[in-house]
């Protein structure tokens, strides 16, 4: 069971302070992240941009509780999840219930149909099959892919697959979604459609969404952008261009 260490004053989104990550030790040690600070509020979509090797993926893995930071502090939904070690004993449950993932390629489970790809997460969280499928269908309707609910993944277009992967990320109503280059394989129109959907979902479900991207097409859509270089982040205001 998770043991919450609530801080009522803290934002309900995701908040990190002084987060560092060092790989290796001694002369060969590499500091991939250096005192990174970042805050994302519920309902907000921010961009995390930077060149290759700047530390984007390392930061994403730390935020996703996949690798352990070396030091710093992370809170999620007002709860401290990392400070001199993980504060949540069951990281698997943390990832399942409170963090959504959207990848560059959709990485859907090819042997499950569209509905079950989305329903799998609530099922893993212990919800009944019927409740999980009802929730999945609701999300698929919201994302305008309900008509492919019984389709196999291989029958979907790239855009449809990405919508299904967004539905999967939202299936357990997580407070944060980490999206790793979600528009990279898409053309401009579809990339902007994905961003429109992410913004819509962030508002609708009050989810904080962090989008790691290189994609010049979508960078103007962010209201806030974190630039990361050599393991350090710099925050700047984005254009926040409306997506039609």
């Amino acid at each position: 069971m998770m043991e919450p260490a609530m801080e009522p004053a803290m934002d309900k989104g995701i908040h990190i302070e002084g987060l560092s990550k060092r790989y290796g030790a001694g002369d060969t040690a590499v500091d991939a992240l250096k005192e990174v600070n970042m805050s994302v509020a519920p309902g907000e979509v921010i961009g995390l941009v930077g060149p290759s090797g700047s530390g984007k993926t390392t930061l994403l893995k730390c935020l996703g509780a996949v690798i352990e930071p070396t030091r710093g502090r992370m809170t999620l939904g007002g709860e401290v999840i990392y400070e001199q070690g993980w504060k949540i004993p069951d990281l698997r449950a943390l990832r399942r219930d409170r963090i959504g993932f959207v990848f560059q390629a959709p990485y859907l489970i090819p042997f499950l149909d569209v509905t079950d790809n989305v329903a799998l997460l609530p099922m893993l969280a212990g919800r009944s099959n019927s409740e999980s499928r009802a929730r999945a269908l609701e999300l698929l309707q919201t994302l305008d892919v309900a008509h492919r609910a019984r389709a196999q993944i291989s029958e979907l277009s790239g855009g449809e697959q990405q919508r299904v992967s967004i539905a999967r990320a939202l299936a357990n109503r997580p407070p944060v979604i980490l999206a790793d280059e979600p528009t990279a394989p898409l053309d401009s129109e579809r990339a902007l459609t994905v961003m429109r959907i992410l913004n819509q979902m962030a508002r609708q479900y009050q989810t904080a969404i962090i989008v790691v991207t290189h994609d010049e097409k979508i960078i103007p859509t962010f209201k806030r952008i974190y630039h990361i270089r050599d393991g350090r982040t710099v925050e700047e205001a984005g254009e926040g261009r409306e997506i039609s």
Partner: protein
Amino acid sequence: MINLAGRDILHSWGKFVLTGMGLGLLIGVTLTMAGVYRGMVDDAKVLLTNSGADLWVVQKDTQGPYAESSSIKDDVYRQILGLAGVARAANVTYLTMQVRHGDKDERTMVVGFEPDQPGEPGYLVAGRRLVRGHYEAIADVKTGFRLGERIRIRRHDYEVVGLTSRMVSSGGDPMVFIPLKDAQEAQFLKDNDAIIGDRARTAANPSLNRPGVPGLLDAINASQSSNRNVNAVLVRVEAGTAPDAVAKEIRRWKHLEAYTGTQMEDILIAKLIATAAKQIGMFLAILVIVSAAIVAFIIYTMTLGKIREIAVLKLIGTHNRTISAMILQQAVGLGLIGFAVGKIAATLWAPAFPKFVLLEPADAISGFVIVMVVCALASTLAIHAALKVDPAEAIGG
């Protein structure tokens, strides 16, 4: 909760079923090997049962007539008939030899027997019993001989007048039954050239061809060209008499060896086919190891093909036990398909084997359990690989 293994199998059922069929053929070979051994044991038991004897009397210090050669005089049976508790006693000969059938040779065991005595075929499936004293034969259907056909044994032709079945030697050779006198001749009589040579040598020997003893040379020649040997005497004891007791008397007073049915079964199964059984046992062990290696390789390869999906499953919070269960269930599923295919294949091809293949239900049950255990063990390699997958692989970088 969704059954991930079942969904994966349904998703790629063609590949899964084809893989299972390949494994099934290997399992079929394994079951058949066990069936070959069972067939050998059954052949040995049928040989004893069909002989209709309670005791086998053979040459002293031998384990004849099947496992070793044995030669005793053909009048011994009269002495045995005189023993208390003996109901019937009859001479028999056994000789494994090539029988000429048309333009090819058939390997058979030629049995010499006396009609209506122990040693004759228990039943016929076609034709009649022997009614003439010479040159008639009853053959097992496995010889391929047909009623009315003529076969050649040594220098005489025999007419096939009856057919029987499940009459085979412990080596699986089908039997051909002929009159005892013919069989003695076939087994012991020398060829004409050898007889002529012996007669010339005897005539040239002054001590055997004395001018003052008329008839001596003829008597010696007759003795050399006739034969009074058989391989065994088959004995049936009276109701209520213990075969062991009669066997003991024969050993004590007749200076012959006598085996009961249990002892003869032990000789045939524990000694005669022991090497063949070990050979088959080695094959079975190798086949089980090969099957296990193949299942392990298939499941491991299938799992490696799903590394990205497994990483995603782990990233989104799937328990290791769920992933392990998925791989285990697939391995067991593969084993189930393989066993079903193997059992069907073995059942279909067993009758085509030249020797009797006996597929026992108990062997099938044991085989099923072994296949399931082997599949479960073989899946551990793939489970180990899956559990080592880092969920971070789904994120990349």
